[in-house]
Protein backbone atom coordinates (compact mmCIF):
# COMPACT_ATOMS: atom_id res chain seq x y z
CA UNK A 1 0.00 0.00 0.00
CA UNK A 2 2.81 2.39 0.91
CA UNK A 3 4.58 1.49 -2.28
CA UNK A 4 1.57 2.12 -4.49
CA UNK A 5 0.80 5.39 -2.74
CA UNK A 6 4.34 6.71 -3.17
CA UNK A 7 4.51 5.44 -6.73
CA UNK A 8 1.32 7.27 -7.64
CA UNK A 9 2.59 10.36 -5.86
CA UNK A 10 5.70 10.35 -8.03
CA UNK A 11 3.70 9.65 -11.19
CA UNK A 12 1.32 12.44 -10.25
CA UNK A 13 4.11 14.91 -9.61
CA UNK A 14 5.55 14.16 -13.06
CA UNK A 15 2.19 14.47 -14.79
CA UNK A 16 1.33 17.55 -12.74
CA UNK A 17 4.54 19.38 -13.59
CA UNK A 18 3.65 18.98 -17.26
CA UNK A 19 0.05 20.13 -16.68
CA UNK A 20 1.60 23.12 -14.97
CA UNK A 21 3.72 23.94 -18.02
CA UNK A 22 0.67 23.96 -20.28
CA UNK A 23 -1.47 25.80 -17.71
CA UNK A 24 1.04 28.67 -17.83
CA UNK A 25 -0.08 29.46 -21.38
CA UNK A 26 -3.74 29.63 -20.37
CA UNK A 27 -3.12 31.73 -17.31
CA UNK A 28 -0.74 34.27 -18.86
CA UNK A 29 -2.91 34.86 -21.90
CA UNK A 30 -5.96 35.23 -19.67
CA UNK A 31 -4.04 37.60 -17.41
CA UNK A 32 -3.04 39.90 -20.23
CA UNK A 33 -6.07 39.98 -22.55
CA UNK A 34 -8.78 38.35 -20.45
CA UNK A 35 -9.49 35.56 -22.90
CA UNK A 36 -9.29 31.77 -22.67
CA UNK A 37 -7.12 30.59 -25.55
CA UNK A 38 -8.99 27.42 -26.48
CA UNK A 39 -6.44 26.68 -29.20
CA UNK A 40 -3.67 26.27 -26.62
CA UNK A 41 -4.18 22.50 -26.30
CA UNK A 42 -3.69 22.23 -30.08
CA UNK A 43 -0.45 24.20 -29.83
CA UNK A 44 0.72 21.48 -27.45
CA UNK A 45 -0.44 18.80 -29.95
CA UNK A 46 1.49 20.46 -32.78
CA UNK A 47 4.59 20.51 -30.60
CA UNK A 48 4.29 16.74 -30.05
CA UNK A 49 4.38 16.24 -33.84
CA UNK A 50 7.29 18.65 -34.14
CA UNK A 51 9.18 16.73 -31.46
CA UNK A 52 8.64 13.45 -33.33
CA UNK A 53 9.67 15.03 -36.64
CA UNK A 54 12.78 16.47 -35.07
CA UNK A 55 13.72 13.13 -33.45
CA UNK A 56 13.27 11.36 -36.77
CA UNK A 57 15.35 13.97 -38.60
CA UNK A 58 18.14 13.84 -36.04
CA UNK A 59 18.15 10.03 -36.14
CA UNK A 60 18.27 10.20 -39.94
CA UNK A 61 21.40 12.34 -39.73
CA UNK A 62 22.94 9.83 -37.36
CA UNK A 63 22.67 11.70 -34.06
CA UNK A 64 22.44 9.09 -31.33
CA UNK A 65 23.63 10.53 -28.04
CA UNK A 66 20.73 11.38 -25.72
CA UNK A 67 21.88 14.90 -24.74
CA UNK A 68 22.33 15.92 -28.37
CA UNK A 69 19.01 14.41 -29.41
CA UNK A 70 17.26 16.15 -26.55
CA UNK A 71 18.92 19.49 -27.10
CA UNK A 72 18.22 19.44 -30.83
CA UNK A 73 14.62 18.38 -30.35
CA UNK A 74 13.93 20.92 -27.62
CA UNK A 75 15.47 23.74 -29.62
CA UNK A 76 13.63 22.86 -32.84
CA UNK A 77 10.28 22.25 -31.12
CA UNK A 78 10.43 25.33 -28.92
CA UNK A 79 11.36 27.67 -31.77
CA UNK A 80 8.81 26.37 -34.28
CA UNK A 81 6.02 26.15 -31.69
CA UNK A 82 6.85 29.71 -30.63
CA UNK A 83 6.35 30.79 -34.24
CA UNK A 84 2.98 29.01 -34.22
CA UNK A 85 1.97 30.86 -31.04
CA UNK A 86 3.01 34.20 -32.52
CA UNK A 87 1.24 33.58 -35.82
CA UNK A 88 -2.00 32.38 -34.23
CA UNK A 89 -2.21 35.54 -32.14
CA UNK A 90 -1.53 37.77 -35.15
CA UNK A 91 -4.04 36.06 -37.41
CA UNK A 92 -6.85 35.08 -35.08
CA UNK A 93 -6.85 37.37 -32.04
CA UNK A 94 -5.12 40.66 -32.76
CA UNK A 95 -7.62 41.81 -35.40
CA UNK A 96 -10.38 41.19 -32.82
CA UNK A 97 -8.71 43.13 -30.00
CA UNK A 98 -11.39 45.82 -29.83
CA UNK A 99 -14.46 43.73 -30.60
CA UNK A 100 -16.71 41.91 -28.14
CA UNK A 101 -15.25 39.50 -25.59
CA UNK A 102 -16.93 36.58 -27.33
CA UNK A 103 -15.30 37.11 -30.75
CA UNK A 104 -11.74 35.95 -29.91
CA UNK A 105 -13.17 32.95 -28.04
CA UNK A 106 -15.00 31.80 -31.14
CA UNK A 107 -11.92 32.54 -33.22
CA UNK A 108 -9.90 30.35 -30.80
CA UNK A 109 -12.28 27.44 -31.24
CA UNK A 110 -11.92 27.90 -35.01
CA UNK A 111 -8.12 27.86 -34.80
CA UNK A 112 -8.30 24.77 -32.63
CA UNK A 113 -10.35 22.92 -35.29
CA UNK A 114 -8.09 24.15 -38.08
CA UNK A 115 -4.96 22.90 -36.31
CA UNK A 116 -6.53 19.50 -35.58
CA UNK A 117 -7.54 19.04 -39.20
CA UNK A 118 -4.23 20.35 -40.43
CA UNK A 119 -2.37 17.75 -38.34
CA UNK A 120 -4.78 15.03 -39.41
CA UNK A 121 -4.44 15.80 -43.11
CA UNK A 122 -0.71 16.42 -43.17
CA UNK A 123 0.36 13.67 -40.75
CA UNK A 124 -2.42 11.11 -41.04
CA UNK A 125 -5.14 10.14 -38.60
CA UNK A 126 -3.39 7.15 -37.07
CA UNK A 127 -1.43 7.25 -33.84
CA UNK A 128 2.19 8.31 -34.12
CA UNK A 129 4.94 7.10 -31.88
CA UNK A 130 8.50 7.75 -30.87
CA UNK A 131 10.91 5.17 -29.42
CA UNK A 132 11.95 5.26 -25.79
CA UNK A 133 14.96 7.52 -25.54
CA UNK A 134 16.08 6.88 -21.98
CA UNK A 135 16.07 3.28 -20.82
CA UNK A 136 16.28 2.13 -17.21
CA UNK A 137 14.94 3.14 -13.86
CA UNK A 138 15.80 3.73 -10.25
CA UNK A 139 14.15 1.37 -7.76
CA UNK A 140 13.68 2.40 -4.18
CA UNK A 141 12.52 -0.16 -1.59
CA UNK A 142 9.71 1.20 0.54
CA UNK A 143 8.43 -1.08 3.31
CA UNK A 144 6.92 -4.15 1.71
CA UNK A 145 6.93 -2.71 -1.85
CA UNK A 146 9.05 -0.45 -4.00
CA UNK A 147 8.86 2.76 -5.97
CA UNK A 148 10.12 2.78 -9.53
CA UNK A 149 11.45 6.01 -10.94
CA UNK A 150 12.21 5.69 -14.64
CA UNK A 151 15.03 7.90 -15.88
CA UNK A 152 12.52 9.42 -18.28
CA UNK A 153 10.34 10.57 -15.35
CA UNK A 154 13.33 11.97 -13.51
CA UNK A 155 14.33 13.87 -16.63
CA UNK A 156 10.78 15.20 -17.07
CA UNK A 157 10.65 16.41 -13.48
CA UNK A 158 13.96 18.20 -13.76
CA UNK A 159 13.20 19.74 -17.15
CA UNK A 160 9.69 20.86 -16.17
CA UNK A 161 10.82 22.47 -12.93
CA UNK A 162 13.77 24.09 -14.67
CA UNK A 163 11.36 25.54 -17.24
CA UNK A 164 9.07 26.91 -14.55
CA UNK A 165 11.99 28.32 -12.54
CA UNK A 166 13.41 30.05 -15.61
CA UNK A 167 10.06 31.59 -16.50
CA UNK A 168 9.48 32.73 -12.91
CA UNK A 169 12.88 34.42 -12.99
CA UNK A 170 12.14 36.13 -16.31
CA UNK A 171 8.76 37.41 -15.13
CA UNK A 172 10.03 38.58 -11.76
CA UNK A 173 13.40 40.09 -12.52
CA UNK A 174 13.80 41.07 -16.17
CA UNK A 175 12.61 44.04 -18.17
CA UNK A 176 10.51 41.76 -20.36
CA UNK A 177 8.87 40.35 -17.23
CA UNK A 178 8.13 43.81 -15.86
CA UNK A 179 6.64 44.83 -19.20
CA UNK A 180 4.39 41.75 -19.17
CA UNK A 181 3.24 42.45 -15.62
CA UNK A 182 2.65 46.14 -16.30
CA UNK A 183 0.59 45.35 -19.39
CA UNK A 184 -1.38 42.81 -17.39
CA UNK A 185 -2.08 45.21 -14.52
CA UNK A 186 -3.00 48.29 -16.58
CA UNK A 187 -2.66 48.06 -20.35
CA UNK A 188 -3.58 51.69 -21.07
CA UNK A 189 -1.07 53.02 -18.54
CA UNK A 190 1.59 50.67 -19.91
CA UNK A 191 1.12 52.16 -23.37
CA UNK A 192 1.30 55.70 -21.99
CA UNK A 193 4.67 54.79 -20.46
CA UNK A 194 5.98 53.86 -23.89
CA UNK A 195 5.35 50.12 -23.94
CA UNK A 196 4.21 48.68 -27.25
CA UNK A 197 1.46 46.61 -25.64
CA UNK A 198 0.59 44.75 -28.86
CA UNK A 199 4.13 43.47 -28.96
CA UNK A 200 4.03 42.47 -25.28
CA UNK A 201 0.84 40.50 -25.94
CA UNK A 202 2.65 38.72 -28.79
CA UNK A 203 5.52 37.88 -26.42
CA UNK A 204 3.06 36.38 -23.95
CA UNK A 205 1.60 34.12 -26.64
CA UNK A 206 5.12 33.05 -27.59
CA UNK A 207 6.00 32.33 -23.94
CA UNK A 208 2.84 30.23 -23.57
CA UNK A 209 3.63 28.31 -26.76
CA UNK A 210 7.23 27.73 -25.67
CA UNK A 211 6.08 26.26 -22.35
CA UNK A 212 3.55 24.07 -24.19
CA UNK A 213 6.35 22.96 -26.51
CA UNK A 214 8.50 21.91 -23.56
CA UNK A 215 5.50 19.95 -22.24
CA UNK A 216 4.96 18.43 -25.70
CA UNK A 217 8.52 17.12 -25.86
CA UNK A 218 8.38 15.76 -22.31
CA UNK A 219 5.01 14.03 -22.59
CA UNK A 220 5.92 12.53 -25.94
CA UNK A 221 9.06 11.14 -24.30
CA UNK A 222 7.01 9.63 -21.51
CA UNK A 223 4.08 8.10 -23.36
CA UNK A 224 5.66 7.57 -26.77
CA UNK A 225 2.35 7.91 -28.65
CA UNK A 226 0.03 10.73 -29.67
CA UNK A 227 -2.45 11.65 -32.39
CA UNK A 228 -4.05 14.77 -33.86
CA UNK A 229 -6.63 14.76 -31.08
CA UNK A 230 -4.06 14.63 -28.25
CA UNK A 231 -4.35 18.33 -27.48
CA UNK A 232 -7.99 18.31 -26.52
CA UNK A 233 -8.10 16.36 -23.26
CA UNK A 234 -4.73 17.54 -21.98
CA UNK A 235 -5.65 21.12 -22.91
CA UNK A 236 -8.81 20.92 -20.83
CA UNK A 237 -6.86 19.34 -17.97
CA UNK A 238 -4.31 22.13 -18.06
CA UNK A 239 -7.13 24.66 -18.18
CA UNK A 240 -8.60 22.99 -15.09
CA UNK A 241 -5.19 23.33 -13.44
CA UNK A 242 -5.07 27.03 -14.30
CA UNK A 243 -8.54 27.58 -12.82
CA UNK A 244 -7.64 25.52 -9.75
CA UNK A 245 -4.57 27.66 -9.10
CA UNK A 246 -6.39 30.91 -9.89
CA UNK A 247 -6.56 31.96 -13.52
CA UNK A 248 -4.25 34.87 -14.20
CA UNK A 249 -1.78 33.80 -11.51
CA UNK A 250 1.51 32.35 -12.69
CA UNK A 251 2.49 30.48 -9.49
CA UNK A 252 -1.17 29.43 -9.34
CA UNK A 253 -0.93 27.67 -12.71
CA UNK A 254 2.14 25.72 -11.61
CA UNK A 255 0.66 24.81 -8.23
CA UNK A 256 -2.70 23.94 -9.80
CA UNK A 257 -0.99 21.65 -12.31
CA UNK A 258 0.90 19.79 -9.62
CA UNK A 259 -2.13 19.42 -7.35
CA UNK A 260 -4.29 18.21 -10.24
CA UNK A 261 -1.64 15.74 -11.43
CA UNK A 262 -1.09 14.28 -7.97
CA UNK A 263 -4.76 14.02 -7.03
CA UNK A 264 -5.60 12.49 -10.40
CA UNK A 265 -2.83 9.89 -10.09
CA UNK A 266 -3.76 9.03 -6.53
CA UNK A 267 -7.40 8.64 -7.53
CA UNK A 268 -6.45 6.45 -10.50
CA UNK A 269 -4.06 4.30 -8.48
CA UNK A 270 -5.96 3.92 -5.28
CA UNK A 271 -9.63 4.14 -6.27
CA UNK A 272 -10.48 3.72 -9.93
CA UNK A 273 -8.45 4.50 -13.02
CA UNK A 274 -11.43 4.46 -15.43
CA UNK A 275 -12.97 7.48 -13.75
CA UNK A 276 -9.87 9.64 -13.35
CA UNK A 277 -11.05 12.19 -15.92
CA UNK A 278 -14.45 12.35 -14.24
CA UNK A 279 -12.61 13.01 -11.01
CA UNK A 280 -10.53 15.84 -12.54
CA UNK A 281 -13.51 17.59 -14.05
CA UNK A 282 -15.59 17.14 -10.88
CA UNK A 283 -12.73 18.95 -9.17
CA UNK A 284 -13.11 21.77 -11.72
CA UNK A 285 -16.84 22.02 -11.00
CA UNK A 286 -16.23 22.08 -7.25
CA UNK A 287 -13.63 24.84 -7.54
CA UNK A 288 -15.91 26.92 -9.70
CA UNK A 289 -18.68 26.58 -7.12
CA UNK A 290 -16.74 27.04 -3.89
CA UNK A 291 -13.64 29.03 -4.79
CA UNK A 292 -14.11 30.59 -8.22
CA UNK A 293 -10.98 32.74 -7.85
CA UNK A 294 -8.85 29.59 -7.38
CA UNK A 295 -6.19 28.87 -4.78
CA UNK A 296 -3.87 31.82 -5.43
CA UNK A 297 -6.16 34.07 -7.47
CA UNK A 298 -7.75 37.20 -6.12
CA UNK A 299 -11.47 37.80 -6.15
CA UNK A 300 -12.35 39.80 -9.23
CA UNK A 301 -12.66 43.50 -8.57
CA UNK A 302 -14.45 45.46 -11.24
CA UNK A 303 -12.08 47.90 -12.93
CA UNK A 304 -13.33 51.45 -13.21
Amino acid at each position, binding site marked *: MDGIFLQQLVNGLTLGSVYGLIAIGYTMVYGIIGMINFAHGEVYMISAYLAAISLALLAYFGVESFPLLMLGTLLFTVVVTGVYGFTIERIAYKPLRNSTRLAPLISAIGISLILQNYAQISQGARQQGVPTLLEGALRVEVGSGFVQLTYTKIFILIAAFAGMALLTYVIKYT*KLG*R*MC*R*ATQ*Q*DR*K*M*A*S*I*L*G*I*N*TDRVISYVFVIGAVMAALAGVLITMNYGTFDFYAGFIIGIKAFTAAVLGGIGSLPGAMLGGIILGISESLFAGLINSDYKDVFSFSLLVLILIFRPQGLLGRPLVAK*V
Partner: protein
Amino acid sequence: MSAPILELKELDVFYGPIQALKKVSMHINEGETVSLIGANGAGKSTLLMSIFGQPRAASGQILYRGTDITRKSPHFIASNGIAQSPEGRRVFPDMTVEENLMMGTIPIGDKHASEDMQRMYELFPRLKERRSQRAMTMSGGEQQMLAIARALMSRPKLLLLDEPSLGLAPIVVKQIFATLRELAQSGMTIFLVEQNANHALKLSDRAYVMVNGEIRMTGTGQELLVNEDVRNAYLGGH
Protein backbone atom coordinates in the same frame (compact mmCIF):
# COMPACT_ATOMS: atom_id res chain seq x y z
CA MET B 1 9.86 82.58 -24.75
CA SER B 2 10.71 80.05 -27.41
CA ALA B 3 8.50 78.15 -29.85
CA PRO B 4 5.64 76.07 -28.46
CA ILE B 5 6.61 72.53 -27.46
CA LEU B 6 2.98 71.44 -27.69
CA GLU B 7 0.20 72.99 -29.71
CA LEU B 8 -3.43 71.88 -29.97
CA LYS B 9 -5.39 73.21 -32.94
CA GLU B 10 -9.18 73.10 -33.00
CA LEU B 11 -9.34 69.70 -31.35
CA ASP B 12 -12.68 67.83 -31.38
CA VAL B 13 -12.91 64.68 -29.27
CA PHE B 14 -15.92 62.42 -28.81
CA TYR B 15 -16.85 59.72 -26.31
CA GLY B 16 -19.39 57.79 -28.36
CA PRO B 17 -22.08 60.31 -29.30
CA ILE B 18 -20.98 62.82 -26.66
CA GLN B 19 -18.61 65.59 -27.65
CA ALA B 20 -16.09 65.91 -24.83
CA LEU B 21 -13.85 68.59 -26.37
CA LYS B 22 -15.05 71.33 -28.71
CA LYS B 23 -12.55 73.10 -30.98
CA VAL B 24 -9.91 73.28 -28.28
CA SER B 25 -6.88 75.34 -29.22
CA MET B 26 -4.01 76.03 -26.86
CA HIS B 27 -0.24 75.90 -26.64
CA ILE B 28 2.55 75.33 -24.16
CA ASN B 29 5.96 76.95 -24.61
CA GLU B 30 9.21 75.31 -23.70
CA GLY B 31 10.06 75.85 -20.02
CA GLU B 32 6.60 77.13 -19.10
CA THR B 33 4.26 75.89 -16.43
CA VAL B 34 0.73 76.00 -17.82
CA SER B 35 -2.38 74.89 -16.02
CA LEU B 36 -5.84 73.98 -17.13
CA ILE B 37 -8.54 74.58 -14.54
CA GLY B 38 -12.22 73.79 -14.63
CA ALA B 39 -15.00 71.95 -12.88
CA ASN B 40 -15.30 68.20 -12.58
CA GLY B 41 -16.40 66.76 -15.92
CA ALA B 42 -15.35 69.78 -17.98
CA GLY B 43 -13.13 67.59 -20.17
CA LYS B 44 -9.74 68.30 -18.60
CA SER B 45 -8.64 64.67 -18.22
CA THR B 46 -9.97 63.85 -21.67
CA LEU B 47 -7.73 66.59 -23.05
CA LEU B 48 -4.64 65.08 -21.40
CA MET B 49 -5.45 61.57 -22.55
CA SER B 50 -6.22 62.67 -26.09
CA ILE B 51 -2.67 64.04 -26.34
CA PHE B 52 -1.74 60.32 -26.12
CA GLY B 53 -4.44 59.43 -28.65
CA GLN B 54 -6.76 57.82 -26.10
CA PRO B 55 -9.36 58.68 -27.26
CA ARG B 56 -8.28 59.85 -30.69
CA ALA B 57 -9.27 63.31 -31.86
CA ALA B 58 -12.08 63.27 -34.43
CA SER B 59 -10.69 66.41 -36.01
CA GLY B 60 -8.03 68.98 -35.32
CA GLN B 61 -4.31 68.67 -34.83
CA ILE B 62 -1.82 68.00 -32.07
CA LEU B 63 1.67 69.32 -32.81
CA TYR B 64 4.61 68.31 -30.65
CA ARG B 65 7.78 70.28 -31.40
CA GLY B 66 6.34 71.01 -34.81
CA THR B 67 5.51 67.37 -35.68
CA ASP B 68 1.94 66.19 -36.10
CA ILE B 69 1.33 63.44 -33.52
CA THR B 70 -2.47 63.36 -33.78
CA ARG B 71 -2.54 59.83 -35.24
CA LYS B 72 0.53 58.38 -33.54
CA SER B 73 0.39 55.45 -31.11
CA PRO B 74 0.62 56.15 -27.36
CA HIS B 75 3.97 54.36 -27.07
CA PHE B 76 5.40 56.44 -29.91
CA ILE B 77 4.35 59.64 -28.15
CA ALA B 78 5.80 58.47 -24.84
CA SER B 79 9.05 57.48 -26.55
CA ASN B 80 9.47 61.01 -27.85
CA GLY B 81 9.50 62.79 -24.53
CA ILE B 82 5.97 63.32 -23.22
CA ALA B 83 5.21 61.72 -19.85
CA GLN B 84 2.00 61.71 -17.89
CA SER B 85 0.94 61.21 -14.32
CA PRO B 86 -2.66 60.34 -15.14
CA GLU B 87 -6.03 60.77 -13.47
CA GLY B 88 -6.40 58.24 -10.67
CA ARG B 89 -2.57 57.84 -10.51
CA ARG B 90 -2.65 54.40 -12.14
CA VAL B 91 0.45 53.08 -10.41
CA PHE B 92 0.90 49.35 -11.01
CA PRO B 93 -0.72 47.93 -7.87
CA ASP B 94 1.16 44.63 -7.74
CA MET B 95 4.58 46.14 -8.33
CA THR B 96 6.96 47.59 -5.79
CA VAL B 97 7.90 51.27 -5.77
CA GLU B 98 11.21 50.44 -7.44
CA GLU B 99 9.56 48.36 -10.15
CA ASN B 100 7.03 51.12 -10.81
CA LEU B 101 9.88 53.60 -11.18
CA MET B 102 11.66 51.22 -13.56
CA MET B 103 8.53 51.21 -15.74
CA GLY B 104 9.11 54.93 -16.24
CA THR B 105 12.47 54.28 -17.91
CA ILE B 106 11.05 52.39 -20.91
CA PRO B 107 11.42 55.30 -23.37
CA ILE B 108 15.09 55.98 -22.55
CA GLY B 109 16.39 52.57 -21.43
CA ASP B 110 17.83 51.88 -18.00
CA LYS B 111 21.30 53.39 -18.32
CA HIS B 112 20.41 56.32 -16.02
CA ALA B 113 18.03 54.29 -13.90
CA SER B 114 19.88 54.12 -10.58
CA GLU B 115 21.02 57.75 -10.79
CA ASP B 116 17.49 58.96 -11.60
CA MET B 117 16.00 56.78 -8.90
CA GLN B 118 18.26 58.46 -6.33
CA ARG B 119 17.07 61.82 -7.63
CA MET B 120 13.43 60.73 -7.17
CA TYR B 121 14.17 59.60 -3.63
CA GLU B 122 15.61 63.06 -2.89
CA LEU B 123 12.54 64.70 -4.42
CA PHE B 124 10.17 62.37 -2.56
CA PRO B 125 11.92 60.94 0.53
CA ARG B 126 8.78 58.96 1.41
CA LEU B 127 9.28 56.79 -1.66
CA LYS B 128 12.72 55.77 -0.45
CA GLU B 129 11.24 54.41 2.79
CA ARG B 130 8.69 52.47 0.75
CA ARG B 131 11.02 51.34 -2.05
CA SER B 132 10.29 47.60 -1.81
CA GLN B 133 6.66 47.93 -0.80
CA ARG B 134 3.90 47.12 -3.27
CA ALA B 135 2.13 50.21 -4.59
CA MET B 136 -1.35 48.98 -3.66
CA THR B 137 -0.44 49.01 0.03
CA MET B 138 0.51 52.70 0.03
CA SER B 139 -1.52 55.78 0.88
CA GLY B 140 -3.06 57.98 -1.81
CA GLY B 141 -0.43 60.67 -1.30
CA GLU B 142 2.42 58.20 -1.63
CA GLN B 143 0.85 56.74 -4.76
CA GLN B 144 0.57 60.24 -6.20
CA MET B 145 4.25 60.90 -5.51
CA LEU B 146 5.07 57.57 -7.16
CA ALA B 147 3.00 58.42 -10.23
CA ILE B 148 4.82 61.76 -10.63
CA ALA B 149 8.23 60.18 -10.00
CA ARG B 150 7.49 57.41 -12.48
CA ALA B 151 6.67 60.01 -15.14
CA LEU B 152 9.92 61.87 -14.36
CA MET B 153 12.01 58.70 -14.75
CA SER B 154 11.74 59.01 -18.53
CA ARG B 155 13.48 62.44 -18.36
CA PRO B 156 10.51 63.95 -20.21
CA LYS B 157 10.63 67.19 -22.19
CA LEU B 158 6.99 67.77 -21.31
CA LEU B 159 5.35 66.59 -18.09
CA LEU B 160 1.56 66.21 -17.99
CA LEU B 161 0.00 66.06 -14.53
CA ASP B 162 -3.64 65.21 -13.94
CA GLU B 163 -5.09 66.33 -10.62
CA PRO B 164 -2.08 65.65 -8.40
CA SER B 165 -4.01 67.05 -5.42
CA LEU B 166 -7.18 64.98 -5.80
CA GLY B 167 -8.32 63.30 -2.59
CA LEU B 168 -5.21 64.20 -0.62
CA ALA B 169 -4.87 65.80 2.80
CA PRO B 170 -4.05 69.55 2.64
CA ILE B 171 -0.59 68.99 4.10
CA VAL B 172 0.26 66.43 1.40
CA VAL B 173 -1.12 68.75 -1.29
CA LYS B 174 1.24 71.45 -0.01
CA GLN B 175 4.21 69.06 -0.18
CA ILE B 176 3.39 67.99 -3.70
CA PHE B 177 2.99 71.55 -4.95
CA ALA B 178 6.27 72.51 -3.29
CA THR B 179 7.94 69.71 -5.25
CA LEU B 180 6.24 70.83 -8.46
CA ARG B 181 7.53 74.37 -7.89
CA GLU B 182 11.05 72.93 -7.56
CA LEU B 183 10.58 71.04 -10.81
CA ALA B 184 9.25 74.10 -12.61
CA GLN B 185 12.17 76.20 -11.40
CA SER B 186 14.61 73.58 -12.68
CA GLY B 187 13.30 74.30 -16.19
CA MET B 188 10.84 71.44 -16.66
CA THR B 189 7.90 72.17 -18.96
CA ILE B 190 4.76 71.29 -17.03
CA PHE B 191 1.15 71.09 -18.12
CA LEU B 192 -1.01 70.79 -15.05
CA VAL B 193 -4.69 69.92 -14.92
CA GLU B 194 -6.30 70.86 -11.61
CA GLN B 195 -9.56 71.43 -9.82
CA ASN B 196 -7.61 73.05 -7.03
CA ALA B 197 -7.39 76.35 -8.92
CA ASN B 198 -5.79 78.29 -6.10
CA HIS B 199 -2.67 76.13 -5.91
CA ALA B 200 -2.51 75.66 -9.67
CA LEU B 201 -2.73 79.34 -10.61
CA LYS B 202 -0.12 80.37 -8.05
CA LEU B 203 2.29 77.88 -9.59
CA SER B 204 1.59 78.64 -13.23
CA ASP B 205 2.99 81.09 -15.76
CA ARG B 206 -0.20 80.86 -17.76
CA ALA B 207 -3.53 79.11 -17.45
CA TYR B 208 -6.61 78.13 -19.41
CA VAL B 209 -10.13 77.80 -18.02
CA MET B 210 -12.25 75.01 -19.43
CA VAL B 211 -16.05 74.86 -19.28
CA ASN B 212 -18.06 72.04 -20.88
CA GLY B 213 -15.25 71.00 -23.20
CA GLU B 214 -14.43 74.52 -24.38
CA ILE B 215 -11.63 76.92 -23.49
CA ARG B 216 -13.45 79.94 -22.05
CA MET B 217 -10.64 82.08 -20.72
CA THR B 218 -6.90 82.35 -20.75
CA GLY B 219 -4.30 84.54 -19.12
CA THR B 220 -1.33 84.54 -16.80
CA GLY B 221 -1.70 82.79 -13.45
CA GLN B 222 -1.76 86.15 -11.68
CA GLU B 223 -4.44 87.61 -13.97
CA LEU B 224 -6.76 84.66 -13.44
CA LEU B 225 -6.18 84.60 -9.69
CA VAL B 226 -7.65 88.10 -9.39
CA ASN B 227 -10.30 87.66 -12.09
CA GLU B 228 -13.78 88.09 -10.63
CA ASP B 229 -15.44 85.24 -12.61
CA VAL B 230 -12.65 82.80 -11.86
CA ARG B 231 -12.72 83.70 -8.18
CA ASN B 232 -16.44 83.08 -7.93
CA ALA B 233 -16.48 79.89 -9.95
CA TYR B 234 -13.29 78.12 -8.92
CA LEU B 235 -11.78 79.78 -5.90
CA GLY B 236 -14.86 79.62 -3.71
CA GLY B 237 -14.95 83.45 -3.50
CA HIS B 238 -11.92 83.80 -1.22
